[in-house]
């Protein structure tokens, strides 16, 4: 039989066997789907705010020692801050999820590492607010949590400003001017003006007037697309396809152990058909798998698969081709199925971690060596391709996507060539 027809016949045989093995198929499809669901959901939770940026919230425990109307209003304002998750959590019915801790307990919890941030609203809070004096507020923090404590500080100051309609800023400024020896007339003048100009203070707090802001986003981007969830779906999909296709490709090893390989090699067809057949069948399985995963991503998280289906398809196909070639490389190299499983698990986990399957690494400032390592992974090119498509709303005409597609196919080509060499040595050489 000729090269291509034989490869197609072999691929049909593999697919028939694959779809008959119910358990294997369930594992091959259900496991990835549940992982995508869980990761996508968690990414959404962690990033809050529509998933635009991971972890832009600080969790803060509050001890209200004052228990006044004023302090309670203040805590209520804190709860409204988009930057803070105030604990104990306030439930729908207006009750607290847990008993609040007192100040001493909270300090101990920070020391013990059970809590990273705590705010103590001291006795006399209401009095201080009423007399426009500095309120007794203490932020107890673990110095290891810089980012969260910055967020907390901003959230607290904003709430304080809102509670006092800006008077807190006026009095703070007055105190500083007084300390600096400013004549009382000027201070009173400042107080007079700013009392009426709370709006202005609010503006200053937001940085308005100091920094001009403009809002821009790719106009084609689907409004519901969440950065973190698109990342999670793409990342986990690539990882699961790598695992799935390596498992599919290593049926080559099983055929060698069980003897069908010997029979296949004795048949009147070019032996390369066996490798091509395996590549075709793994790619079909991979395409089904990855399409299912993105469909789940669309239904659950609205990652936006309908904006540019052609580009999505090309990216999927490139990813699947690279993953399939990787699987064949492992299968041609390994002496035993155990070896194949161990080596592929190791490489896939490292690639997934470095390549941004688990966490959007490209958001960080990476040392050059890691940056280079990242660029050597299948995951990186695939995940950034999907991000370019969903988040940057790019398409096949854009260089980012072209780079991803190009590198993935280059990877597929090189891995296939190497796999073919190893196949000749390890399968044909020792029949």
């Amino acid at each position, binding site marked *: 039989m000729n090269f291509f027809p*034989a490869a197609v016949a072999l691929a049909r045989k593999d697919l028939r066997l694959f779809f008959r093995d119910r358990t294997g198929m369930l594992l091959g499809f259900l496991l990835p789907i549940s992982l995508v669901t869980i990761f996508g959901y968690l990414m959404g939770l962690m990033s809050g705010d529509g998933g635009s940026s991971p972890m832009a919230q600080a969790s803060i425990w509050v001890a209200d020692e004052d228990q006044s109307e004023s302090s309670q209003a203040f805590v209520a304002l804190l709860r409204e801050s988009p930057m803070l998750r105030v604990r104990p959590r306030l439930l729908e019915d207006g009750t607290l999820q847990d008993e609040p801790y007192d100040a001493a307990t909270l300090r101990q919890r920070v020391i013990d590492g059970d809590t990273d941030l705590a705010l103590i609203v001291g006795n006399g809070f209401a009095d201080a607010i009423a007399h426009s004096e500095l309120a007794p507020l203490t932020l107890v923090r673990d110095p290891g949590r810089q980012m969260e404590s910055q967020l907390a500080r901003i959230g607290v100051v904003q709430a304080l400003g809102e509670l006092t309609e800006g008077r807190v800023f006026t009095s703070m400024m007055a105190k500083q001017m007084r300390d600096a020896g400013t004549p009382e007339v000027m201070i009173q003048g400042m107080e007079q003006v700013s009392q009426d100009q709370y709006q202005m203070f609010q503006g200053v707090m937001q940085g308005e007037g100091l920094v001009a802001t403009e809002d821009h986003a790719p106009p084609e981007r689907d409004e519901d697309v969440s950065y973190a969830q698109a990342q999670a779906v793409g990342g986990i999909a690539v990882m699961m396809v790598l695992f799935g296709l390596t498992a599919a490709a290593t049926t080559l090893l099983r055929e060698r152990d069980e003897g069908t390989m010997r*029979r296949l090699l004795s048949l009147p067809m070019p032996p390369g058909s066996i490798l091509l057949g395996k590549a075709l069948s793994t790619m079909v399985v991979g395409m089904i798998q990855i399409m299912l995963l993105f469909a789940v991503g669309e239904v659950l998280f609205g990652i936006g698969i309908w904006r540019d289906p052609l580009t999505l398809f090309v990216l999927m196909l490139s990813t699947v081709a690279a993953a399939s070639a990787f699987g064949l490389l492992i299968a041609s190299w390994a002496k035993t199925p155990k070896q194949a499983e161990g080596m592929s698990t190791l490489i896939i986990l490292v690639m997934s971690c470095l390549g941004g399957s688990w966490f959007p690494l490209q958001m960080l400032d990476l040392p050059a060596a890691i940056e280079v390592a990242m660029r050597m992974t299948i995951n990186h090119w695939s995940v950034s391709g999907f991000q370019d498509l969903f988040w940057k709303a790019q398409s096949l005409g854009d260089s980012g996507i072209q780079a991803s597609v190009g590198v993935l196919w280059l990877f597929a080509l090189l891995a296939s060539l190497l796999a073919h060499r190893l196949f000749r040595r390890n399968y044909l050489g020792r029949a």
Partner: protein
Amino acid sequence: MIQAKQLCLSYGERLAVDHLEFTIEQGECFGLLGPNGAGKSSTLACLSGLGDGWTGTIEVQGKAVRPAKELAVRRSFGLVPQDLAVYEGMTARENLAFFGELAGLNAGERGTAIDRGLALAGLEDRADDRVDQFSGGMKRRLNLAVGDVHQPPVLFLDEPTVGVDPQSRNHIFETLESLASEGRTLVYTTHYMEEAERLCQRILIMNEGKSLGCGTHEELTAQAELPSGSTLEDVFLHMTGRSLRDG
């Protein structure tokens, strides 16, 4: 018909086939008899063009088996491997159809080949059952039928009766005898003397990759310088020695 010269195959240091020379005539059933590890399967691997680690020459009907690209040569033989080389997840019919297609049968030829194969294996009633539901004997019979699905002029059979019940063994024997009577050439490896004696006109006795003698029962008896009327077993043990074989 088949001519092997200076055939050698080594796995690393070990010579599994050691300068074998033999000729197999058209229509004959040729036996390769030897204890476990003698190199019978390795010899069949060379004959069927597997691997490229061997040296020497093999010609089938005057055409070299190598380079392996010579698909026409391959079409002239079928291999029945020692391992059960069928897909457990597919039915008997599907296995026959699949290997028949790869062996080069077109859709029309396949239909008759499958029916013939099922009859050959005595599996007409179980044609559409998956192989993983078959007994050892049924799998062996299917293994044989699959190797013969394209009815090649030459059939290489590697211990095709290992581990089967007497009924299946008898079925396989009758099948092979009928193939032989059609004028097909059979190359049969075994470590059972009685099988070789019943089926094969000429036998090559091999051990540790080397040929110890080749010919009919009488010729082998003479080569071993044993009294005529000695059993094949006497000849075999005389040639290969009586120590235990563990691979």
